[in-house]
């Protein structure tokens, strides 16, 4: 499981303003959604991996992330291969089954679209930690607020992110406590045992999360959260030349991507 509490070593990405990183993130998300060709996805993935390298984040995390989404990726690939309405037939595997939209053929377009969708998922999964792990949460919240995201929404987002490491730690403690009651989490293949163990983990974890959220609610209320005044921020952020450079590059990427898409590239 990924360690959400991990922060990157000092890197150029930490020097950037939170707003320029958020805008770049939004542009990457937009580009992966407007293209549906594996080649274009591969280019975006290469770009994201390059940024990952610049951010000095451990590449082992990418391996963990891919393991995490492996099953979903395989399902997406198989579904697209079988059900994408392609025109270049490669292999006939059965009679057509119109009721479920299956033509009976595996098509080239189906394979390419399936690969593109898996790459899309990988890009989204890999790009998100770049933001979280290179930006301290107060800076992230300030960036969201400066981008006119309502303060309450920004607070919910950053609080959720800040709670992830503590939820992970709590889950580890609960697992240890359950092990002491004779529960085994490593019963490979025994579906029912795993299901029972999951219930044993989830009940105290969810109840604990509810209790923590109630405590947080009281703590926030007692510290004037939601007071009907303009709040003061302790942090200040300013755009620097490197932020303008990043934004110019990002804008170029977005305009170029939209232009290519309008010309009909990046899809079938």
């Amino acid at each position, binding site marked *: 499981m990924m360690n959400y509490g991990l922060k990157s070593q000092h890197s150029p990405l930490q020097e950037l303003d939170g707003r320029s990183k958020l805008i770049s993130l939004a542009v990457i998300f937009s580009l992966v959604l407007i293209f549906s060709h594996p080649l274009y996805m591969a280019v975006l993935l290469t770009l994201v991996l390059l940024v990952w390298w610049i951010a000095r984040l451990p590449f082992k995390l990418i391996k963990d992330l891919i393991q995490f989404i492996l099953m979903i990726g395989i399902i997406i690939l198989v579904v697209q291969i079988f059900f994408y309405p392609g025109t270049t037939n490669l292999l006939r595997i059965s009679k057509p089954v119109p009721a479920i939209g299956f033509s009976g053929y595996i098509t080239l377009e189906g394979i390419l679209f399936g690969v593109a969708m898996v790459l899309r998922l990988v890009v989204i999964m890999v790009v998100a930690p770049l933001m979280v792990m290179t930006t301290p949460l107060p800076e992230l919240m300030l960036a969201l607020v400066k981008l006119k995201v309502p303060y309450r929404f920004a607070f919910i987002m950053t609080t959720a992110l800040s709670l992830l490491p503590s939820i992970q730690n709590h889950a580890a*403690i609960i697992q240890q*406590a359950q092990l*002491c009651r*004779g529960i*085994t989490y490593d019963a490979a293949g025994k579906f029912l045992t795993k299901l029972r163990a999951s219930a044993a983990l989830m*009940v105290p974890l969810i*109840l*604990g999360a509810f209790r923590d959220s109630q405590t947080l609610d009281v703590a926030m209320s007692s510290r004037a959260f939601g007071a009907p005044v303009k709040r003061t921020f302790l942090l200040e952020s300013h755009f620097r030349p490197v932020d303008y450079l990043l934004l110019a590059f990002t804008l170029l990427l977005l305009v170029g991507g939209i232009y290519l898409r309008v010309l009909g590239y990046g899809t079938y």
Partner: protein
Amino acid sequence: MARENIILCENLDFIYPNGVQALHNITLAIEPGEYVAFVGQNGSGKTTLVKHFNGLLKPTHGTVRVFGEDTQEKKVSYLSRKVGYVFQNPDDMLFCNSVEEEIAYGPRMIGLGLEEIGAKVERILRELELDNQREIHPFALSLGDRQRLAVACVLSLDPEMFVFDEPTTGQDYFGGKSIMMLIDQLHAKGKTIVIITHDMPLVAEHARRVVVMNRGQIALDGSPEQVFRQTAQLRQLSLRAPQVTLLAQNLGLKDRTILEAASMIRWLAEDYLPAPGVMQGEQA
């Protein structure tokens, strides 16, 4: 004749995955029937050490033997039948829909027969005075009762040794007393007890051996009277003997007499404490 050790740690080092070395070259033996208290500042390695006693953590270097068996080769589910571990927060251990189901869960997991499970659950419910609450959802119980239930869950696996991580934390005076009485009863039945605590009066009153941890090493190890006499060393470790023990020491009482005097002073003090109802009335 020397008795066989229940726990034997030899040259134990433990390093967490983040690189923090929590234990340094620990060598320690615990014999059957002992009542050991582990004390020390937060981060001194108490919990890390006792989590080796049932295989929750495995040594980075060195060995830990539980009833002669190397924990590296055994699963927690196996060792938990020999060493029961009651966590500080009972809520981490509870997840069933009723007290009864909660107690029965462990025995079901280890494959006991239905009849045996039923008899065991009845006996534990009675012994821990939870029989009137058998159908209640565990999270509807008071903290004290949830702590008792957590003990009941571990007791249902019938271990020879119990580890209690800060059993009185968060409990009121009477809740704490009640759980300590329960632990004393287990000890009286011959079970080996290990507790982690910051409560020095509790150590003086209940434990027969004190292990003081500091920065992942054992700083002091001995009977409460031996350890509490090391006032200068305790001060260096930011610890302090209980006031009653210090008073008894200042009165010139020695060794076991110190603890007996301390207990006597405490009993006298308790005679003057108001009953629970009166205390609640005062608070209201």
